[in-house]
């Protein structure tokens, strides 16, 4: 019995030693919370998102922060989408780190933390999640990422332009994928098109051969993919492997997907947030260069969105500070956001927050040529 007691004490001491908070919450710094996919299948996204945010912070801090007060980043892990982990994370961020602003990601964790954020009046900014359910007008949740359904609109318009009639779809078997499908199918049909195949797959699948086989048999004019992340790369590669030759169109492009697909992605067209380091604005080019210099890889929209999120916050702080009083809290920051509405976007142009918390940014059509994304033209989203 005594041996047990001793081993428990030893164990708890180790834990206590390790558990000493890394420094009490410092009112003298702007501490931001982030809840990202740092481990698990989506860890790539957590990595680039945190890198984007960190770069923005470093740039701002190099200029002395805001009136001498510097930024600090606290990164928490929701393990690629686990609501329970996200809830633990936000509890810690809110109660121990006492952050009034959190950069969130993924749909499920964001939904899970929303009640707690609402209760503690913490402002949430999402730059990654895509589920239609994330649209919560009047809440503390805002997005600086274009809604997937709008991007899909761009895709079907372009399809019509290219003279396609028969559409096959491959999509994520979840709210985001099914949500886009449910939204776009009636619209496509009204435009005179038909749907010859509708295949779903679990998020993060690695074997699409069965879905591809069924799509191939349906002989569509084109394949529309409501798919995100590296899944795109695998799906496209396997489609081409199995002899599927029809054109492919989608709503996302990421470097890791491109890496996997290699030449198979050639000719794919996609409609997405207009993040184009090649053409585009000076800020875009500077950001891309700085990111490449610091991390050794090219940035994509996710890194850009979270970089942008920090700059948006900086604006909010300045605006709230001007009004005097205690400006470093969620309510004041949210009020500032609702007042200012339009912010410069790292994509070029502006990011324009709407009543319902979503935002409009420039959206464009890209084509993969020579294994690189090539800008084709801007897309006007007719809502």
């Amino acid at each position, binding site marked *: 019995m005594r041996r047990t007691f001793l081993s428990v004490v030893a164990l708890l001491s180790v834990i206590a030693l390790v558990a000493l908070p890394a420094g009490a919450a410092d009112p003298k710094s702007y501490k931001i919370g982030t809840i990202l996919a740092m*481990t*698990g*299948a989506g*860890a*790539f996204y957590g*990595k680039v998102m945190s890198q984007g945010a960190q770069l923005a912070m470093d740039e701002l801090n190099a200029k002395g922060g805001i009136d001498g007060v510097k930024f600090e980043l606290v990164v928490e892990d929701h393990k690629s989408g686990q609501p329970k982990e996200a809830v633990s994370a936000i509890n810690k961020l809110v109660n121990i780190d006492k952050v009034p602003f959190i950069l969130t990601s993924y749909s499920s964790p964001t939904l899970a933390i929303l009640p707690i954020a609402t209760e503690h009046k913490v402002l949430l900014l999402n730059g990654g999640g895509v589920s239609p359910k994330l649209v919560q007008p009047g809440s503390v949740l805002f997005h600086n990422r274009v809604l997937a359904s709008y991007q899909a609109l761009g895709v079907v318009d372009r399809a019509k332009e290219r003279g396609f009639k028969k559409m096959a779809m491959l999509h994520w*078997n979840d709210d985001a994928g099914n949500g886009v499908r449910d939204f776009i199918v009636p619209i496509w049909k009204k435009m005179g098109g038909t749907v010859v195949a509708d*295949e*779903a*797959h*679990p998020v993060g699948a*690695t*074997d699409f*051969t*069965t*879905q591809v*086989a*069924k799509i*191939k*048999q349906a002989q569509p004019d084109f394949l529309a993919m409501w798919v995100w992340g*590296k899944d795109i*790369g*695998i799906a496209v*590669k*396997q489609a*081409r*492997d*199995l*002899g*599927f030759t029809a054109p492919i169109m989608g709503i996302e492009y990421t470097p*890791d997907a491109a*890496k*996997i697909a*290699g030449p198979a992605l050639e000719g794919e067209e996609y409609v997405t947030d207009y993040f184009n380091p090649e053409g585009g604005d000076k800020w875009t080019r500077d950001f891309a260069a700085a990111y490449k210099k610091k991390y050794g890889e090219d940035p994509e929209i996710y890194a850009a969105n979270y970089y942008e999120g920090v700059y948006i916050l900086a604006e909010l702080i300045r605006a709230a500070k001007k009004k005097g009083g205690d400006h470093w809290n969620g309510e004041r920051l949210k009020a500032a956001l609702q007042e200012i509405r339009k912010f410069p976007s790292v994509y070029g142009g502006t990011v324009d927050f709407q009543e319902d918390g979503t935002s409009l940014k420039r959206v464009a059509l890209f084509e993969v040529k020579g294994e690189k994304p090539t800008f084709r033209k801007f897309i006007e989203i007719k809502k």
Partner: protein
Amino acid sequence: MDLFAQLLVNGIIAGSLYALVACSFGLILGTTGTFHFAHGVVYAAGAYGTYFAASRGLPLWAAAGAGIAGAALLGILIELVVYRPLRKISASPLVILIASLGTLIVLENAIAIAFSTDAKVLEGFPRKGVIVGGVGFTTLHVTMVAVSLAAFLALLAFLHWTRTGRAIRAVATSPEMAEIVGIDTGRVFLLVFAIGSAMAAPAAILIMMDRGGTPDMGMEAILIAAIAVIVGGIGSVPGAALGALIIGLAQNLGVMKIPSEWQAAIAFGVLLVVVILRPHGLLGKKLKKAEI
């Protein structure tokens, strides 16, 4: 008919890959009695080892050799450092399972820290798409099936026609008897871990070439392998291969009737059916109702 043929080919390809992991897992389980969960990460390590060697400039075939050798070494290391000390203190199978799981977690995250978590693709294999009678596949897929078949036959030949192979089978049947007739079971265990690990690595390497690999690629692989072994019958290498093939075919042909999102559950559906109708697996030894 086109669809059926395509799905059939897909199923065979999938089954072949599963068979490599299943036979190796089954060999280890049958001979040492260890539920080697960590086999999943050894499998992944084979791919990452190859990736590392290739990034250092080795030609692809040499890098693959390095990866396979590395996996074998890792397998042996795990046996020596984790399982053997536990067996010495007569730890229960449950304790060994958790230790194996802990090992999997440690190594998987070590790989993630070292290589980061985005998908890594092995370049350099001459892949060409082929279309035969409406069915599409690539030269890489042909290689997968060929490698799997060759490894399977080699293993069977080894187990039945060489002295060492027979020693392994003796230990698998009864470690106590094997000791009595003078077989060094400790060395046999090490050998089995080495062979098993080396056999699983090519599957991971081929997948990394085909669709990229991630640090957690082993988890799904080991689950399917375990199911295949149960379906085929514990203690039977041909059984494991048969189980793997059945699962590959069921998963692919099954979507002709079942919506494709249920694909993951098909493997376990097969498992439940087999377990209910034939608990000792298709080719396994019959379990006596009560071992008196």
